[in-house]
């Protein structure tokens, strides 16, 4: 049992971020030390929490010791532990890359914004309250606005304005959705909502379905599902390389929220019927098609990778929209894979950009860049993983998704044809940039000179690829673990019991105790939270 450690992934970055911005404002070295130490601690914490979650039932942390429907709870189950682990690993790689490539000294407050970003993402994965989810979304968004425009520049600021406005509109929609759901159910605690929604007579669910539909739109904006994908390519291309890599987890926050809410609160076939599946399945298929066509049509490498993120979100949503255990397990595997693959590709593309000078990322032949061989090899590995070719984990993930959707032949057709398009797209980009370079005339482009430690940058990107290799080698245990995670998602009673079982009784005992505060002896069941006599030293 993890006790207070459950809140640590939120509290630790929440302390580190202001510490870095206030105390080490002008000292980049100590900023870097504390940032890397914080990220390492987060990885260790996430591993501990994941180990605990994989043997225990969902565990609840009551903030301020308020019981569930009245207070906010954090819930640690296998899915949230998995997301925490993925986030922290990605965060560590991104910070190492930012230090190595010198990105963190091109603007202010990179490291403290990173910590705020971690705080928001971890909180969104842990919280068990829908309004608190909104608050953590805002925390992670406001940090991402700062990171997005890190180091400034005209195109980046303009893309940043678009990104901010799009997400502000999304946040407004989120509030409308929450208000609608609250007006019907009178609660926003997810476990309590699940109980109340399940017993609601079908004749009274009209407004609730509106709320559920609005919520789906909000999460689709975050996940960049068609038709809400327009913000993604410009944002990811113009963001600094390491930030784009970190943003690979941001679309997964939307995916996570969809999986969480539509298995727990609005399960398929439940009160709102099959609404989620009917909306998600076509949206996912079209996202996949548009994403992969975008990979083929992109004119710069940043957009190639950005569109492949849209495609991969489509792929995993095809699996999640089945709402079966096997398909969800496969989708989770593909999600872990595609997050690592997209982040690795963004870092590799940034390595290219740093070395191509004025040519930027355009897919045109430019004389070979420095370290061309190594970078080309890494891009090759990342592209294989992203397109879903053997031997890397993308192939295994897609195979598992195809296996879980057996019988839906149109879906097989979409996945297989789009994979071919992606292979073509990546092949065209890679061969033009790395191969035709040898035929191009001119001098080697001038690389950016302010890299702190290029070796560290390569290590960070390589580390993510090593993660993909590990995910391939240990595909058996990993997919078994994720399958059990999916099982836990489809037995929401465990989650609900962890939060709600006995909550009203305990809350009642606590309040009736306080009501008799003039009494000499605290009422029985008062618990240890209100000592009978003052403790010295407090």
């Amino acid at each position, binding site marked *: 049992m993890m006790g207070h450690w459950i809140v640590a992934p939120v509290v630790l970055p929440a302390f580190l971020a202001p510490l870095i911005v206030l105390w080490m404002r002008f000292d980049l070295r100590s900023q870097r030390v504390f940032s890397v130490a914080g990220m390492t601690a987060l990885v260790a914490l996430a591993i501990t929490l994941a180990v605990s979650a994989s043997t225990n039932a969902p565990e609840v942390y009551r903030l301020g010791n308020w019981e569930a429907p009245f207070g906010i709870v954090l819930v640690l189950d296998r899915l949230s532990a998995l997301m925490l682990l993925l986030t922290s690993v990605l965060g560590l790689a991104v910070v190492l890359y930012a230090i190595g490539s010198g990105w963190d000294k091109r603007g202010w407050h990179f490291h403290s914004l990173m910590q705020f970003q971690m705080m928001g993402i971890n909180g969104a994965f842990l919280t068990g309250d829908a*309004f608190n989810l909104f*608050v953590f979304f*805002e925390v992670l968004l*406001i940090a991402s*606005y700062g990171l997005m*425009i890190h180091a*400034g*520049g*005209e*195109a980046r*600021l*303009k*893309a*940043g*304005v*678009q990104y*901010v*406005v799009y997400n*502000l*509109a999304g*946040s*407004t929609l989120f*509030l*409308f959705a*929450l*208000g*609608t759901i*609250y*007006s019907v159910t*009178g609660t*926003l605690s997810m476990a309590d909502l699940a109980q109340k929604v399940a017993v609601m007579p079908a004749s009274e669910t009209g407004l609730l379905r509106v709320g559920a539909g609005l919520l789906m739109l909000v999460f689709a904006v975050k996940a960049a599902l068609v038709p809400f994908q327009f913000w993604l390519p*410009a944002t990811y*291309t113009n963001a600094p390389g390491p930030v784009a890599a970190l943003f690979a987890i941001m679309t997964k926050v939307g995916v996570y929220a969809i999986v969480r809410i539509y298995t727990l609160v609005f399960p398929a076939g439940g009160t709102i019927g099959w609404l989620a599946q009917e909306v998600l399945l076509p949206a996912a298929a079209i996202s996949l098609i548009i994403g992969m066509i975008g990979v083929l049509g992109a*004119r*710069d490498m940043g957009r190639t990778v950005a569109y492949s993120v849209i495609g991969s979100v489509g792929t995993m949503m095809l699996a999640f929209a089945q709402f079966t255990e096997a398909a969800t397990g496969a989708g989770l595997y593909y999600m872990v894979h595609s997050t690592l693959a997209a982040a690795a590709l963004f870092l590799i593309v940034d390595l290219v950009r740093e070395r191509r000078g004025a040519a*930027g*990322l*355009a897919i045109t032949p430019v004389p070979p860049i420095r370290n061309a061989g190594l970078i080309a090899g890494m891009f090759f590995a990342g592209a294989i993983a992203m397109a879903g070719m053997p031997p890397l984990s993308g192939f295994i993930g897609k195979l598992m998704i195809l296996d879980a959707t057996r019988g839906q032949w149109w879906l097989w057709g979409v996945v297989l044809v789009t994979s071919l398009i992606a292979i073509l797209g990546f092949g065209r980009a890679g061969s033009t940039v790395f191969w035709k370079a040898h035929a191009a005339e001119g001098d080697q482009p001038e690389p950016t000179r302010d890299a702190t430690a290029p070796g560290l940058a390569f290590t960070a990107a390589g580390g993510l690829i090593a993660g993909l290799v590990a995910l391939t080698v240990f595909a058996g245990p990993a997919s078994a673990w994720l399958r059990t995670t999916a099982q836990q998602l489809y037995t929401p009673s465990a989650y609900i019991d962890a939060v709600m079982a006995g909550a009203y009784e305990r809350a009642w005992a606590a309040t009736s105790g306080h*009501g008799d505060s003039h009494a000499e002896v605290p009422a029985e069941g008062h618990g240890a939270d209100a000592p009978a006599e003052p403790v010295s030293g407090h």
Partner: protein
Amino acid sequence: MEALVASAVGIMTAAGIYLILRLRTFPVVLGMAMLSYAVNIFLFATGRLAVNLPPILGHAGAETAGYTDPIPQALVLTAIVISFGMTAVVVMLSLGAFIEAGNDRIDLGPEENKK
């Protein structure tokens, strides 16, 4: 009163959506502010409209004349703080983009594709 509140939310949302679809950042920022006002009133109304009632229950057992739901008030307070902060951020960002680019168009323009 219901009609007044409902039409206020509706009109402000409509105006906000119209404004955020404009091409310049200034109307877009105004539109965002308008939308956040609309959603704040909407959130406030989700606890049902009740006039002159306290947001607390009376003592247990005592007769209570009624109460207004305090939770939407807490939610709307949070939402106001967040939307105020976000408006400040988007104003600063738009100013930054305006100073860098020399115009306040919100689209990226053809130069984006040359990058």
